[in-house]
């Protein structure tokens, strides 16, 4: 490994060109800062986003392996991306807001942690992002939605799959609303409207879905931000006193170690890698890792416990139509987090567009069907299947964490090791939700219903924000308590997970960081 220490200096280094990093880079570059965006993965263009669930897998995490354990592993391989755009390059664009009660879980329920800010603090940033990016939805139909500006775009259409399942919700006395998505229902901000073909998981190449390549990255680049791909940051460097960072070291595509200096550094390498970077940057002043004197870096790792419900309906549902993220949402009961023996809010994302293969595809929902029975099942399901997924709240627990393994990667850097368990109250919440989903499908007329396995969706926590350095890694602006010019961005900051998809919130937080 050769070492090239050129000591080039910029105003701001942003580590990771994903959902959070691109917002930070765009805002800072627009404000006149000299910004360099270091991205571990390869460059990505819209034309790389071919319509194939097989090819889509190259968008997934391609860096050093992440080891996983616990009764609900975080699913890093599925939940993380690599390359320009990060995981957000092929996120599904489901963008609900956190609810007001998600910000005070500890105060209200003596579980998990509180946020150092309230929904009201974050609301202007949600509204600003929403206006920039464009969200389609129906604010009146979402009776559970916290106070917010109306959506800038009309809702997405509901196809037969959504209409069929909605009847089941209505029969069970539950409400549904058009799903709020960062996808154009009609053209907006020079981006086209959606074609409803369900290829979002392979990445939307039309620009209808608000991935970073069509939202914040072009703003960053047109304002002079420099994007360096194949640049894996391995270490954050600090001054002698250990109270300010001075730059980073990264490994380039040739395996050479390079150094870049800066006035400020923002880590936006996603939840696990942000924690890992702090831990592996240990020094004499920070022997347990940067900003880790209270042994909090890596802790409170979270993932949403999620389970899908499936059914075959007598009518044609046309499950290939619509976006992958779904057509409808139900958040009835979200406000009631705690009941005896049960804890956590949940939501339903309803009528996701289906493809035949891949982890979420039709065939793998029924691994028990093999041999000659498979083709007739596939033919029937291609026309008559319905599905939806419940996403539940996780409780922030200190024991769930990222640590450094004794196993090393090719550059001699320890691998990240993750532990994530959920307790009985969360398991019961998930089981109750699934039972409700099965009832809804029967009430919608499904002739056959089944459920998938519980899995971890989204990754949050690991470098949580808070007002007290004794219980958090960063303050309410994402600034590390122990290093005044080192910032964190992304869902790693979340002190609670809520039960909603995180990208809208993490982008609002990134805007909040910059004021």
């Amino acid at each position, binding site marked *: 490994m050769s070492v090239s220490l050129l000591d080039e200096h910029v105003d701001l280094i942003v580590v990771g060109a994903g959902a959070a990093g691109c917002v930070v880079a765009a805002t800072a570059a627009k404000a006149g800062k000299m910004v360099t965006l270091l991205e571990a*993965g*390869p*460059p*990505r*263009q819209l*034309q*790389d*986003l*071919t*319509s*194939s*669930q*097989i*090819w889509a*897998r*190259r968008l*997934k*995490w*391609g*860096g050093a*392996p992440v*080891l*996983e354990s616990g009764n609900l*592993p975080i*699913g890093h*391989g*599925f939940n993380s991306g*690599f*390359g320009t755009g990060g995981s957000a390059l092929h996120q599904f664009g489901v963008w609900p807001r956190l609810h007001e009660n998600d910000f005070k879980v500890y105060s209200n329920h003596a579980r998990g942690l509180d946020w150092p800010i309230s929904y009201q603090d974050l609301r202007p940033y949600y509204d600003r992002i929403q206006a920039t990016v464009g969200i389609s939805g129906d604010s009146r139909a979402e009776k559970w939605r916290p106070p917010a500006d109306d959506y800038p775009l009309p809702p997405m259409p509901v196809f037969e799959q959504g209409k069929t399942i909605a009847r089941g919700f209505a029969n069970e006395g539950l409400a549904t609303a058009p799903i709020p998505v960062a996808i154009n229902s009609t053209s907006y901000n020079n981006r086209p409207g959606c*074609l409803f*073909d*369900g*290829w979002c998981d392979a990445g*939307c*190449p*039309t620009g209808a879905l608000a991935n970073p390549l069509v939202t914040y990255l072009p703003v960053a680049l047109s304002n002079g931000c420099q994007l360096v791909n194949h640049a894996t940051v391995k270490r954050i460097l600090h001054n002698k006193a250990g109270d300010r960072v001075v730059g980073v070291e990264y490994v380039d595509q040739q395996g050479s170690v390079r150094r870049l200096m800066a006035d400020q550094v923002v880590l936006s390498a996603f939840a696990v890698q942000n924690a890992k970077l702090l831990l592996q940057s240990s020094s004499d002043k920070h022997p347990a890792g940067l900003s880790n004197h209270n042994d909090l870096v890596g802790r409170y790792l979270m993932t949403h416990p999620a389970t899908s419900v499936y059914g075959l309906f007598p009518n044609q549902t046309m499950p*290939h139509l619509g976006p992958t993220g779904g057509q409808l949402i139900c958040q009835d009961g979200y406000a009631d987090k705690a009941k005896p023996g049960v804890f956590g809010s949940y939501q339903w994302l309803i009528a996701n567009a289906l*493809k*035949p*293969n*891949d*982890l979420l*595809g*039709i*065939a*793998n929902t029924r*691994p*028990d069907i*093999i*041999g*000659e029975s*498979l*083709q007739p099942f*596939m*033919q029937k*399901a*291609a*026309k008559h299947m319905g599905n939806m997924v419940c996403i539940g709240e996780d409780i922030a627990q200190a024991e769930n964490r990222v640590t450094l393994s004794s196993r090393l990667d090719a550059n001699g850097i320890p691998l990240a090791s993750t532990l994530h368990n959920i307790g009985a109250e969360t398991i019961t919440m998930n089981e109750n939700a699934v039972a409700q989903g099965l009832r809804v499908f029967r009430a919608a007329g499904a002739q056959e219903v089944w459920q998938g396995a519980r899995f971890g969706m989204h990754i949050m926590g690991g470098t949580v924000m808070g007002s007290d350095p004794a219980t958090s890694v960063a303050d309410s602006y994402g600034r590390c308590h122990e290093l005044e010019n080192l910032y964190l961005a992304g869902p790693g900051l979340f002190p609670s997970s809520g039960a909603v998809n995180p990208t809208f919130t993490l982008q609002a937080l990134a805007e909040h960081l910059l004021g």
Partner: protein
Amino acid sequence: MNSRRRFLNASALGAATITAAACTPSGTADHKPSTVTATLLLTAQALQTLSHVCERLVPGASEAGVSVYVSQQLARDAASNLLMLQYLGIAHEDHVSFYRAGLSGIEGASQSLFQKSCCSLSSSETDSLVKNLLADEFTDWSGAPSSFFLFVIRADACDVVYGTKQGFENIGMPHMAHIVPTEEW
């Protein structure tokens, strides 16, 4: 399909090499054609076992080239490998040993239960072997559970049978691609 069949036949003869350039699409940022020659990572017998069992799990998998698919992907680096296994908590560096162990486990189970090689089992014998492995009933099995291994190779088989434009059409699902990939995988 012809080139895949040729490769299958060639690999059946014993140790062989495949040229990565022959199977990577052109024009994508991280998949430039490469002249790197990838060593075949699974033995001919292992590939035949894979093909045979996948055919029973997902009819059409052998013809669609499941064993070529798996061996090609195993030869790729972590950032370009397309196997579903990468979602399932198995580190890229352990992929080859995962397939080797699973396929030799199947062969061992076949020898133990029927005293013959998996590839020479009749359809009904293969069915009962598969049933046994899906239920994790074969006790002399090491590594990841046999049911998990079968889940993974069934998913691989579904990729090649149903994950292509032709596969969509065969089940009557409109493909509606934005950008059709230049290669199926």
